């Protein structure tokens, strides 16, 4: 009886009127719709991309398109294998050169360098991420490639007995120089993630190793590196994803030979580069083939990034509970690292 005489009718004393609850509801459903929109957008894009790529797949067959070793626009043959291999060769080179250097900088910054040098060193490495891709291309083609051509030729001559590496004539745009510049470009992200993961190694582990008489380097090898292995591998995979998707620098540096170069210092082509170069004047099946190339690129980066994220997540999950950092959960660790790079 008492409750019924309250001004709000039969509402409880603490609940709001339906009108006052309206903005709350609107915000909640509005934001949920926004989040759902992102999902819908990605699915929609994927479907449309497949739709545009279909004529090329219909002509060559999915298998024939991906593994056909013949990209000939005038004859309307679209086999993307030379492009796919170009992408894979340059990305593999980037990993081979970039990851050891990136991990070394991370080790130096977290374990060996004087405390005062740590912040400036980190900033300098991250500055590499601020340089736009087209500037890397410009610098690579006008400075790095001409300067290194002589040494590349020297190496190619000395290693002529190894198939695919040496023996040929070094051109200014080539696979090797592309891989080298890509290595510089992925350095900041691989280094940032390695640093993040290394900073989560519990001090106990390191002190235990040192207390048992290990040298600095032995401590790094037995306490730090095994603890961070999957995190570093994940960081390297994220770098691989970057290298695979990198477009403009590669387009400038790899040349535009739509066939598989016969050695490491020859011109080639990559999936991303062929799109950037040929899309403007492409018509009909050719254009559809470029969409198909984009789809292959999309799926490739999806697989690589998915694997990378799983690894980094697992590494972070294993460490974040041990390190007791309540603020940075496994996902934020990664987001932090990728947003900063």
């Amino acid at each position, binding site marked *: 009886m008492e409750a019924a005489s309250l001004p709000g009718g039969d509402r409880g004393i603490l609940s709001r009127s339906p009108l006052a609850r309206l*903005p709350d509801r609107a915000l909640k459903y509005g934001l*949920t719709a926004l989040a759902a929109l992102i999902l819908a957008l990605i699915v929609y894009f994927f479907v449309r991309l497949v739709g545009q790529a279909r004529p090329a797949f219909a002509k060559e067959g999915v298998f024939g398109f991906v593994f056909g070793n013949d990209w000939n626009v005038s004859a309307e043959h679209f086999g993307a294998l030379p492009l796919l291999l170009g992408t894979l060769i340059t990305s593999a080179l980037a990993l081979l050169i970039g990851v050891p*250097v990136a991990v070394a900088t991370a080790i*130096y910054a977290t374990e060996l360098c004087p405390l005062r040098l740590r912040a400036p060193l980190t900033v300098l490495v991250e500055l590499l991420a601020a340089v736009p891709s087209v500037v890397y291309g410009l610098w690579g083609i006008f*400075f790095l490639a001409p300067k290194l051509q002589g040494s590349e030729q020297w190496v190619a001559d000395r290693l002529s007995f190894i198939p695919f590496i040496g023996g040929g004539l070094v051109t200014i745009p080539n696979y090797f120089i592309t891989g080298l510049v890509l290595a510089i470009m992925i350095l900041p992200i691989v280094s940032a993630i390695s640093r993040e993961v290394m900073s989560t190694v519990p001090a106990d582990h390191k002190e235990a190793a040192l207390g048992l008489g290990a040298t600095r*380097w032995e401590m790094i090898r037995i306490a730090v590196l095994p603890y961070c292995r999957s995190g570093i591998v994940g960081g390297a995979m994220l770098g691989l994803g970057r290298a695979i998707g990198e477009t*403009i620098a590669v387009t400038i540096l790899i040349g535009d030979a739509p066939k598989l170069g016969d050695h490491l210092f020859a011109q080639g082509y990559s999936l991303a580069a062929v799109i950037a170069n040929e899309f403007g004047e492409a018509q009909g099946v050719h254009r559809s083939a470029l969409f198909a190339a984009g789809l292959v690129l999309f799926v490739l980066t999806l697989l690589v*990034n998915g694997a990378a994220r799983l690894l980094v997540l697992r590494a972070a999950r294993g460490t974040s509970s041990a390190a007791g950092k309540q603020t940075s959960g496994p996902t934020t660790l990664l*987001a932090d690292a990728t*947003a900063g790079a």
Partner: protein
Amino acid sequence: MSANATSSDRLARFALSPARRRKDRFARAGVLAATAIALVPLALIVYYLLRKGLGAWSTSFFTTDPTGNTFFGGSSIGGIKSAILGTIEIVALASAIAVPIGIGVAVWLVEYGKSSWFAQTVRFFVDVLTGVPSIVFGLFVYIVLVVGTGSTYAGYKGSIALALLMLPVVIRSAEVILLLVPAALRESALALGAPRWRVIFNIVLPTALPGMVTGVLLAVARAAGETAPLLFTADATLKTNFNLGGFMNSLPVQIYKDVTSPTTAVVNRAWGAALTLVVMILLLNLVARLISRRSRLA
């Protein structure tokens, strides 16, 4: 004498063998050398950008549009005014699209979605977006807005491509900062009777603002340097254009086109434009770092 000998014998048992010491020295020197090697490209890039770029800079470089007339070289090739303005316009619109949506999704993830399966799915797809190559975003926008509408390139289409690129960076960085807002702040506001939306707008967002600005500026800096998504969405003019519905030039695209030119003067224009672009991006990064240093969170 003999006592001294035994104590040094005892110490010798703990001393490093020469082989281990050598290995340690060698490995540490290797790590130091690799770190030095990592900084060499940065030094070389900065040096060459300054040397070549400053040589191309002049007042007319910033106040004239590039011309198609590249045959005679010299001053007849023009400057990069339209490219600078185009980049600013395209990136500004891209930010206007990506920032509200990105922060909205981040707020939803932190305040409503939390760790529900739907929120996890959204997080996963946002991560997927982070990994999508920038040229693929260009293809998406081309399919939907150029083929789909049967029209041609336009500045705002480039903005949308860049906005897609910025979106995941904005969402993830904003989410990280929003998670750092102390739960006690939210709870006190709720306990005082504030409705949820007031808590979000009056407590959570103002607290997180400086940190979110940092993430946004880093996303803007990333978008400003992108070439690939603009190639077949916005490009195709040399003139200054203030209408985002028309063709629009931009710094990265201008550089990309000038790189392939056989004329030295045009390549020099590319260096000048590259220095301009890098300076713009570094300024954004610098401001982002300064703001994040002043933020109370993180």
